[in-house]
């Protein structure tokens, strides 16, 4: 059984359809990446999976239809780290983390927080600071940590490398790769295709609202079409 199975997902903004029937299935414990150019519909796909934008088609999560609302999906164990991070800028790092565990009990929150402070010592140092004053890399870490506070089964990661210097991208993606060992499955959307292919197990290439190619990361990295368009060869 797939952890997440998207079938014939269509999304329209006004009358213009931007996702034209996307099918995608991912198994538990995997890191799956969706790569593609700006405007290909990658972010829309994640938002549809999370319920942030309305879509048609079916979304099965652990074999059952997903709850209709974003909040219901969070409660079911899905969690989206948006491209824009969506932090609570005028609240402290610690409050952001607390709210990440909104649906958890106080003791679960305390445990998760201690755990995440170990993993992100930088956030522990800055726990009293306002989220809005953090640097780009720290914000991305906080977004990840906040998401992990909810103890998700499936993490939807949208462009974690966006706007970050290469060194920090490596650090963040390193953390993402490690998450697999904690039992979190990850659907990763990245424009930085090379970096994404390095940590993922399988990859899908999106173009103009459709999935054009799918395969293991090795196959995809060797695919001339992918190389030409997204890996900057030629």
């Amino acid at each position: 059984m797939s952890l997440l199975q998207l079938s014939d997902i269509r999304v329209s903004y006004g009358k213009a359809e931007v996702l034209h029937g996307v099918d995608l299935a991912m198994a538990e414990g995997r890191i799956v990446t969706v790569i593609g150019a700006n405007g290909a519909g990658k972010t829309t796909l994640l938002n549809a999976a999370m319920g942030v934008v309305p879509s048609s088609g079916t979304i099965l999560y652990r074999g059952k239809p997903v709850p209709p609302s974003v909040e219901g999906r969070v409660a079911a164990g899905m969690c989206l780290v948006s491209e824009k991070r969506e932090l609570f800028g005028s609240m402290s790092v610690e409050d952001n983390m607390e709210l990440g565990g909104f649906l958890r009990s106080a003791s679960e929150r305390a445990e998760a927080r201690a755990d995440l402070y170990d993993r992100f010592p930088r956030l522990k140092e800055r726990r009293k600071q306002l989220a809005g004053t953090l640097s780009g890399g720290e914000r991305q870490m906080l977004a990840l940590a906040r998401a992990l506070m909810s103890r998700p089964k499936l993490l939807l990661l949208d462009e974690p490398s966006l706007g970050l210097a290469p060194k920090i991208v490596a650090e963040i993606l390193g953390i993402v790769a490690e998450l697999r060992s904690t039992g979190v499955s990850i659907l990763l959307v990245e424009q930085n295709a090379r970096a994404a292919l390095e940590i993922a197990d399988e990859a899908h290439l999106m173009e103009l609202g459709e999935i054009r190619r799918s395969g293991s990361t090795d196959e995809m990295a060797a695919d001339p079409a992918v190389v030409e368009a997204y890996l900057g060869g030629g």
Partner: protein
Amino acid sequence: MALDRRLIGFVGIAVVAAVPFLPIPPFWITLLNNIGLASLVAIGLVLLTGVGGMTSFGQAALVGFGAYTTAVLTTAYGFSPWATLPLSLLAGALVALPLGLITVRLSGHFLPLGTIAWGLALYYLFGQIQLFGRYDGITAIPPLELAGHRFFSSGSIYYVIWGCVIAVAIGARNLLDSRVGRSLRALRGGTQAAEAFGVDIVRAKLTVFVLAGVLAALSGWLYAHMQRSVNPTPFGLNMGIEYLLMAVVGGAGHVWGAIFGASLVLILKDLLQRFLPDLVGITGNFEMIVFGILLVAILQFSRDGLWPLILRALPARKRRPLPKADGALGRRKLAPEGTTLVKLEAARKTFGGLVAVNDVSFDVKAGQIVGLIGPNGAGKSTTFNLITAISPLSGGKVIFGDATASAKSPREVARHGIARTFQHAKVLPEMTVLENVALGAHLRGRSGVVRSVLRLDRAEEAILLAEAETQIARVGLADYRDRPAGDLALGQIRILEIARALSLDPALLLLDEPAAGLRHGEKQELAELLKKLRAEGVGVLLVEHDMSFVMGLVDHLVVLDFGTKIAEGNPAEVRRHPAVVSAYLGGVS
């Protein structure tokens, strides 16, 4: 088909004219008079709210100014009622102008709150002015008089009122279907695009504000001579809310809907006032409960009002052939190839401590296509916004042609002959493709409000529309000319934006990610079009992500990363540049 809308319109007018001859109770005529008066205000609100996107709860106070002006002048100074008509309208305009100047500067939700505030303040003011008879008001206002006939009866003033309503409704429709009308219709949700094509937004807003004020004053003038007495009550906030309810019921974008809304609300009010007190057991204005619920229900279930539902039942409007254009628009004399069209000198933008654009310099020449590229978040869009004066420079200069200083507004940029498209396409979804594109030619026409209302603008309008049609055909959207822009696919909307930009007859074209969302064939057509423009001597600057599209097209590339220009040169050079390879093409170092 036998029935068309024009015929329905004529039948409607004939029925309106026949009403006083029908054997109906006199209070029906009174009710119809009230509906007519309210319709005038509601049409003003349609222009203001539905078209201009500005919600006003304060129109009743403006009706008051029209009414009090004639009441005071005719009773205290012996003016004849007809002589006070222009003065009443002027009073409406003169009060609306400063209120508008204040109000149009209020953004978003502050604006309706502001109208509530001045609506209340003016109401209390009416009740305090000695000249206005304080809360008692003014009585014994003379009736209208024409060739010895005095309009005492409600049946006779009926024709004056409904004559005004029909004339105003037709005038308003004429206005909306014109060059000025397009700029007004862009106020709701399309101000950025309109401004980029030279529409003076503040002036357009003021125009509708004053027009709505004049219509309210006209209603007030008629009211004073129908009622022959005035006091502050009908000019209070509750009435202001009722007028807005009429506009919302009608569907705030429709002129005829305003008359429909006024009818529905006032008939309902009449029925409720007759039957509700018996139901509740005490007297009072209980219709407000129903009106309040009605307002909320319409917003919840039919946010565009009820008129569109009726329109759907009517036969579809016939596709209008374009009027025959007598002549064509003059073309800009393009600068010789190689002339600098825009020059960035250490352009800089900071947000708080963050440097988004770090002293970037480059220029675009006539007959040249320049690409501005860089990874996500590199500052391309911010740079684009600096060039188009959407956001102000923190330092440095952006000089167009032989200008000496940076442009201060997108409107000024447009006047330099610079047209743009938007990354997130900004078209007006309810306007047709033709109208959207014609908006691009705004600066190439001159007709104003009065000419439009009176249809003296038709010759110029025909030429503007012909130009728009030419550009639509040029980009290959001819089949969609009369469709609402909202019906188009995303790629087509991007193409539509390019046609709109071409309607400005630009010397320089600024394109923000034009190829995003285009299919392969569409991209090729776009590239061909841009090459053709280049050959004509137009300069093009494009921000683009699609490397294959850019590489084959541009003469010159500028690469940004983290807000700083890291490379510049022809595509082959840039492609080999080590900083570019590592920054733009990604990879974990």
